[in-house]
């Protein structure tokens, strides 16, 4: 009987191997004809994978996520609350706060004085969306934006909240959204990784960002986000050493390949031929990446659009322009992080600078994509990990105040990629403390983003440690109202 059992398992293995082989070879033509990315991706065709394809045509092919790390205040940006101005200095009613948990930073505060926005609000565009005067460039493109004012999350501190946003779980070590997309859709480009990350920081209180936010988790490491840095080496170890010409590198790689090939003849291990291919991809990346990083060929009109900062490596503006170039070259998911939005005190001064650093370039990116005809297929997302309180943290003075973390409501915006333009979705109560209408949970947001890319969040799963994991954990509903 035991042999039977073994036989059965060997058969299963063998069938899987054969079907992998046939998917990998026989269907290349089929795959490139019908679905360029599904089968040509680098992911191992694990038997546990259920392709997350839905029966609808995806609009978005790529995502650029402008993550505003530290959590920008919704009250000074997109959620206009005139009532707070009237009630400045008055206590937040207990009935509004309810059993809301507070961070350790304000839990011991004896008073919770409400405070309105120091920035002025106006309505813009056909949609009439309210935007504060801290964001003059963004206010001009509101008709391209879908502003969601009713986001809410479960985490109250930066690390778990960021992790929750990116991986669908607060604990970490699960794949990041970009890794899921790379896994689900593969790479559009043979010379670049499918998931790249760009970092920048403003003057405000910096919260660390770290590689676990772009982790592949339990997925194959080809899906890991590759950090492009602003330094000399945009991709780690990309640059050849001094004195080594491209020709020299080519000759070396040819020799390595020849020797590896001899080794393949001896051992017959397919891993050896895979290694030869990876060295070739590395060589191509060495050419492609510097080309993308080179902004000298961008016309003046583009430089003007993003603002002069875009020529200063490592700035948010430079990263926005880089994001467009990467995305245009077929990078599936470009993730930006801009640090410095954590305004516990001195909010008016700091947020003004943060907004100034990011407003023009964010709007420019949307405009630039639109001009190139790429906005329809590129989903741009702007937002932080949670919101900020409508009461002041610390002392409220005539000139200044601060705001603590607030998971109950906050605002983000999206553009392109099939979202409904010119939409303002969701409402908070008049004190900007609780959601009054159309709440959107992080998992709903994630489900919606996957949907835009043609992926069903309940089907894009990976079996690990006996459980099928997905980006949206066990919840999440696609918010149909946000879709054009």
């Amino acid at each position: 009987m035991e042999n039977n059992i073994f036989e059965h398992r060997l058969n299963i293995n063998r069938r899987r191997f054969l079907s992998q082989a046939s998917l990998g070879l026989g269907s290349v033509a089929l795959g490139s004809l019908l679905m360029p990315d599904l089968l040509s991706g680098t992911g191992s065709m694990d038997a546990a994978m259920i392709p997350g394809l839905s029966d609808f045509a995806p609009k978005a092919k790529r995502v650029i996520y402008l993550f505003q790390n530290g959590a920008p205040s919704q009250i000074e940006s997109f959620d206009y609350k005139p009532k707070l101005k009237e009630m400045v200095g008055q206590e937040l009613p207990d009935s509004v706060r309810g059993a809301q948990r507070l961070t350790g930073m304000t839990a011991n505060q004896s008073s919770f004085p409400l405070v309105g926005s120091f920035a002025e609000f106006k309505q813009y565009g056909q949609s009439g969306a309210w935007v504060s005067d801290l964001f003059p460039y963004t206010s001009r493109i509101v008709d391209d934006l879908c502003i969601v004012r009713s986001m809410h999350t479960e985490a109250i501190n930066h690390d778990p909240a960021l992790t929750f946003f990116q991986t669908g779980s607060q604990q970490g070590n699960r794949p990041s959204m970009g890794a899921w997309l790379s896994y689900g859709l593969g790479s559009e480009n043979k010379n670049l990784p499918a998931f790249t990350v760009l970092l920048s920081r403003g003057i405000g209180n910096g919260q660390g960002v770290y590689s676990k936010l772009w982790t592949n988790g339990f997925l194959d490491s080809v899906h890991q986000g590759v950090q492009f840095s602003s330094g000399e080496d945009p991709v780690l170890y990309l640059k050849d050493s001094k004195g080594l010409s491209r020709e020299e590198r080519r000759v070396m790689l040819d020799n390595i390949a020849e020797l590896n090939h001899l080794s393949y003849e001896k051992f017959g291990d397919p891993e050896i031929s895979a290694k030869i291919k990876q060295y070739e991809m590395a060589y191509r990346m060495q050419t492609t990446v510097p080309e993308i990083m080179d902004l000298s060929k961008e016309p003046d009109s583009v430089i003007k659009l993003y603002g002069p900062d875009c020529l200063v490596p490592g700035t948010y503006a430079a990263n926005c322009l880089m994001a467009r170039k990467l995305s245009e070259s077929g990078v599936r998911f470009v993730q930006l992080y801009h640090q410095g939005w954590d305004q516990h005190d001195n909010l008016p001064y700091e947020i003004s600078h943060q907004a100034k650093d990011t407003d023009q370039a964010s709007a420019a990116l949307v405009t630039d994509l639109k001009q190139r005809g790429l906005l329809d297929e590129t989903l741009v997302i702007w937002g932080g990990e949670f919101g900020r309180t409508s009461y002041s943290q610390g002392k409220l003075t005539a000139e200044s105040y601060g705001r603590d973390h607030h998971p109950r409501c906050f605002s983000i915006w999206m553009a392109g990629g099939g979202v409904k333009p010119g939409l303002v979705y969701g409402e908070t109560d008049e004190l900007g403390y609780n959601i009054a209408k159309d709440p959107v949970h992080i998992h709903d947001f994630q489900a919606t983003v996957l949907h835009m890319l043609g992926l069903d969040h309940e089907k894009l799963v990976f079996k690990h440690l006996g459980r099928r994991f997905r980006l949206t954990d066990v919840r999440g509903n696609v918010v149909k109202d946000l879709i054009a």
Partner: protein
Amino acid sequence: MDSILKLIVFNRFYFGSIHFFIILLLMASCEKKLDSGSETIEIPDQVSYNFHVRPILSDKCFSCHGPDANKREAGLRLDIEEEAYKALTETPGAHGLVPFKPNESEVYKRIVSDDPTFKMPPPESNLKLSDSEIRLIEKWIQQGATYEPHWAFTPPKTPKIPNIKNKDWPLNEVDYFILAKQEARGMEPNSEADKEALLKRLSLDLTGLPPTLKMMDQFLSDDSPKAYEKLVDRLIASPAYGEKMAVYWMDIARFADSHGFQDDSYRSQWPWRDWVIHAFNKNIPYDTFITWQLAGDLIPDATKEQLLATGFNRNHKITEEGGIVDEEYRVSYVIDRTNTVGKSLMGITMECAGCHDHKYDPITQKEYYSLYSFFNNIQERGIESVVGGPETYAKRPFMQISNEDVESILTFVNKKDTLDLIVSVMGELDSIRPTFVLDRGIYDQPLDPVEPTTPESILSFGPKYEKNRLGLAKWMFSRENPLTARVFVNQIWQEFFGKGIVTTPGDFGMQGALPSHPELLDWLSVDLMENGWDMKRLVRHLITSATYRQSATISAEQLEKDPENMLLTRAPRFRIKAEFIRDVILSSSGLLNPEIGGPSSKPYQPGGLWEGATSGRGILSVYKQDHGEKLYRRGLYNFIKRTVPPPAMTIFDGSNRDQCEVQRLITNTPIQALVMLNDPTMLEASRVLSGKLMQESGDPETNIYKAFRTIVCRQPTEKEMTVLKKYYEGRIATLNESQATDLLDVGEYPHATGLNPVTWASLMQVITAIYNLEETISKT
């Protein structure tokens, strides 16, 4: 509008039909396979619950008809025999399973139904049974629908050594089990690997280091019949053995040099790592090794060494972020310990039961918190201090290590200065902190109180055990515990053979993989228990087997019949771990600093990584690279800052030490190629080795030959020498002096003097190429 609508409809259809088309194609090819003689899925004569049916039920049915009471549908439970046979309350007259009668069994009727409202699994679950799965279930019911207890939850018994035909092949018991399976499949093992391959394999497996030229010459010339065994004795006694074994234990123990979370500042936990190296080298029995780590502080009259061992369960991340809720984080530490112990020592994915009853394994949420309560009584806080000076490098409870300790009991701690060290360890509260089931795992949602105990389905926690961590350790090492020995044997097997006998080392439960050689696993487990949990004895069983000594070449037949090498008809061939890649490079170039233990070191790493990912607080906000000897320490000692782990490690799948890991992926990516080509560590090694060789000999051929041997650990073939010589001559002809000088300008190690830069750089290029061979960093 109309046309747009049409377009959309067309689009939907278009995509829908493509999807359908693909499915048709796939189905067509499957059908073909089903029909093509030898490829037919054979339904075994006797269907086994454990090996055939349970994996299907567990994967496709248990999430609604399994152990989790809150999610159970229709009152039907399929993981327990009596429950599955019972009359269904919601469908009068029907029974889930009727032995011998598939057509009367509701389960069968539903899995073959086409009616979407009746069909199981329901279409909205996105789960589907394949034809062969349905046929297996049908046959199982026909044969009586008999259940068997889960294999991993019954204690291992010594199995009979199987009969085999080729009696000349086995060298020890392991081989009988391996060969029996091969013979039953009409396969045979590869012949023994050549001596060079064996030496490299053994040396990497036992020390993490490549053999030296001297070792190669010695072993090649030793014709005595016991040459191999002598080599094993020598390597397993080398102090590098402890370092090698410690690498896998560091992943399990989630060891790091920083606290993790937002600011991620420094912790001085490395003396605990020194202890682990020491423990492996001293070969302390596995039961002692674990008991001290779990409960060293509770042993009567605990020594400082036993206390230091408990650092194991304080290696988890600890927050220094102001403003957090203390209890939330304290609870998360207890959860981390519970999950670590579950995954690494029990082979059970406990974490699933933290929020609800386990969906697949018979572990209730109550049992989770009962296990949790063993670790809930520590004198610790969620946040003790924010980023600060040396007093924050360990968190209460911690121990101090003085110079006196190092001179007396803790002699293995490689302490450099006279300042006292602090290390986080375990320590109980004076009173009992009550433990509750936490609703959905949320720290401030207590439900019923629980007492320390272990999951009943694994092994009852009898009254003879103290209700504390020491009692838990005794329970772990009870002869009746079905998991402890198996889980450890499997981890060690994985360490030497690349993957475990159970390929899911962290999950021996219902959803885990079934063992490929269950009797072998049990034989080794019983042998381990009956021989005092002797770790080196277990290792010897593996490496002195004929199975281990096979050659690693893969024939087309093997690749076709057994692509995953389940039958072990060849030695596994895989890329070595990140730490050992570094060791191979440093050791072969002669740069390696062999010092054992001590604080972690900070070798070359690309600039700006820590600086770009920091809040700016603490001594780890800027990467201060080491100089001199410290640059050349083994990979094991590479400083791990959790939020920005060393890229040369993580790119080669090193753990970020976020949580306990029992298995590393082995990937193959273009970024890995870039590291091998451009990391200054690699280039410096090439520069130093080429300089050294040229000082020894002026003959390029001799030098190339020697370099190849030193790095790849075998003699090059004639063809290989031809390629390399031609490459070298090409460099001599092409490189000019300024290029050469640039190429040589890498690394801080002093330059050799009196060498011609062009010749030197040419040899250096050749050596870099040799370092980049796939075989160099593979176990072959």
